[in-house]
């Protein structure tokens, strides 16, 4: 029997391989996401350092937050995890129309979140004169939430790509079905980082006395 190197789509636990039983790409995505804790951890720590340090000139982020607004956008992002998981569920049942609907919904909710971020940043910059260079606390806030937003934007691009591929081909193949699951993992991860940021950066942050 001809030896096959690797399947382009599914990875089965080859009897010829010693394996974890988790497909290569899925294992790879989980490993990558594990490393992202170190990435966002550094940014969050940085924010905690500077937001608690007194004596800076200019406004502190905690002085300008609009908690009701941010609560709504946090809720939006949280619900996008629901639509994401419904998209994955639809794909597993080969309901291609449903998959596309939920993929699009997730991308839409993610975009609404991003729009909210843009609006929020604009308010801070124009309305409260808090820019990247106002003080280290402001720098920390913008770079943390900015990188999170960048991750969301990349996620939206991936979601729309899957949606587009599904439309063009009348549905996602098994290979792309796995990719949907992987994009889902990435999306949920970005959501849980926001869960941490919403609590630590917004709800718990108090400007130093």
């Amino acid at each position, binding site marked *: 029997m001809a030896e096959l*190197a690797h399947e382009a789509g599914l990875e089965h636990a080859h009897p010829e391989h010693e*394996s974890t039983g988790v497909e290569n790409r899925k*294992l790879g995505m989980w490993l990558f996401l594990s490393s992202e804790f*170190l990435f966002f951890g550094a940014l969050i720590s940085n924010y905690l350092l500077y937001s608690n340090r007194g004596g800076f000139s200019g406004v502190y982020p905690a002085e300008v937050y609009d908690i009701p607004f941010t609560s709504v956008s946090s809720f939006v992002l949280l619900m996008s995890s629901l639509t994401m998981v419904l998209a994955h569920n639809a794909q597993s049942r080969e309901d291609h129309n449903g998959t596309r609907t939920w993929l699009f919904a997730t991308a839409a909710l993610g975009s609404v979140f991003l729009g909210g971020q843009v609006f929020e940043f604009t308010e801070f910059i124009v309305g409260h004169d808090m820019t990247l260079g106002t*003080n280290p606390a402001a720098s920390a806030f913008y*770079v943390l939430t900015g990188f999170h937003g960048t991750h969301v934007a990349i996620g939206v691009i991936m979601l729309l790509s899957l949606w587009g591929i599904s439309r063009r081909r009348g549905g996602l193949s098994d290979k792309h079905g796995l990719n949907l699951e992987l994009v889902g993992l990435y999306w949920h991860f970005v959501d849980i980082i926001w869960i941490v940021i919403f609590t630590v950066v917004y709800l718990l942050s108090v400007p130093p006395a």
Partner: protein
Amino acid sequence: MTATADRPTTTIFRRPSSTTGLWSWITTVDHKRIGIMYGYAAFTFFIIGGIEALLLRIQLTQANAEFLTAGAYNALFTMHGTTMIFLFVMPTSAALMNYMLPLLIGARDVAFPRLNALSWWIFFFGGIFLYSTFIFGTSAAPVGVDGLGGIDGNLAPGGGPGSFNFLADSPDAGWFGYQPNAGPLYSPGTAMDYWALGLQIIGLASLVSAVNFLVTVLNMRAKGMRLLRMPVFAWMTTITSFLLLFSLPIIAVALFMVTFDRQFGSLFFAATNGGDPILWQHLFWLFGHPEVYILILPAMGIVSEILPTFSRKPLFGYSAVVFAGAAIAFLGFGVWAHHMFSSGITPVAQAAFGLATMTIAIPTGIKIFNWLGTMWMGRIRLNAPMLFAIGFVAMFTIGGLSGVTHAVVPSDWQQTDTYYIVAHFHYVIFGGSVFGLFGGLYYWFPKLTGKVMSDRLGKVHFWLMLLGFNLTFGPMHWLGLQGMVRRTWKYAPETGLEPWNVAVTVGAFIIALSILVFMINWFTSRRRGQESGLDPWDARTVEWMTPNPTPEYNFAVPPVVTSLDHFWHLKYDEDVEGRAVRKDDADEIVASIEHEQLHPASPIHLPNPSYFPFFFALGLPLVFYGVIYHLTLWGKALILVGAVISLAAVIGWAIEPLEEPHLQSKGHEGAGDAEEALTDG
């Protein structure tokens, strides 16, 4: 010879199919070719970094010399360190890990071949980007900063011949880029932007590799190769990959913060505005300490392969060596602030980190004793690889001992920022990693080429390098304790440091000579070296169960592993006292393995070459050039162009299947070159 057959286009461009010529190297996804490219690139940077070191040494040979200006000196030690760590040692380890890992575990390639190519091309373009600072970078004196009086380190106070002043426009704030010195206020110009963004790009390459190697080890081992039957080098690759995975994101954040400070006006490290310079040190060393274990563990793995082979004994305490490696990595995450003992951290912190640092000596000692135990009562053959491995053990031990003295905090206050530290880390990185890596190159040279390197020249290389190395770095212990300060372009004659500095410089040139010998050996052996056959070293592990040079498909029939040192046990039995006795039919067994692997029973599918990793990687430095010059129109354009190229490459990649179903590789007829035409059916 390429066979171009009709194939449906699944992408905009036709799938590349050539197996010879430049284009085949640009589109290759074969781990062996990628490893070879890493190796040649890394060695080129080794030469460059070595020249940088020699220039430093010429300056330091005489007291009060002005061969280099202060500015040029700063740039050279910055680039020497950056080059040697990120562009030589890490990529040489990557070269060997790339080439050998699939072979060591009985696999055909890594888990993600295109991602593997991506890592290489990102590294390649990143290295070029970083070095382009010598052409495009600028570095000016801080202007209007109180107390500095407008000193410009680029000017030679007394003039002087050969000031190499063009170098002064390069990164000059140390390989560790301490803030705020390396920030926008004290290092205006673009040189440190090239440094920060260059490292950012290269870091990404290693992160991607780490994920790739981990999935490969976890999911693609040959049947029967349980984790605790893997060769030690495969284990060290795994552990190194975990270190990379978890430490690189930290330096990525730190480098982004520096870039934002320098380019976009943020205040992370702006001390006058409340930014905290110590934050940089924490973030840098949180990465930087695991980094040094990233530098040493692969070489430790290589030594753990060579010593048993050339002692004709199993590795003493295999499990202990593996677990000690894991322990070193784990503990290595907890000691970073030992690089900060004189930075003003609290006494409690100093004591905690000092204690933690000492504990790393334990697993390290376990490994050293196990290596000694491997050699003890072995029937030792002193071929070139073995000399380098033994040299590693000796030199690394010396470096480790000086390291333990740093762990004693008050002792470190005396040693820090002196040449004593320079001695320590060169003993562990050069005496350790570099000796180990050279051992690996000699050991596995047959796998690449089907030939062995000249053992005679190898011994000349070894002894010259050992002599030169110890003459260079040995005296530095004494020089440091006598107060010779690091990173300082000149010293006064009254210090009495000159005589030993002369010796050090002589040693450095002897090292250079030894490298020349190695290069001659490498290139002549490739051409006219003795044929190696399948098993030139009478080795123990499965990477030797396939012909040399390695066929494109690695194994026609993947091995079914039944024990640690599987290959050895196919050839040897044990007598009643546990000694190895070669089987009567061992030679036949080896010959039949060679025959079986040379003649696959049916065509073998291999992943197809791809353009997209190359183009994705190309876009990144374009974006970063644009970031540096983002205030100009063409800088903004570069960002856009680079982003579009990378995005297009990603999309093409996502659509392209890993294998075209009807492109296959024929089996080999002979152990000729590693290239084979892809044909249909």
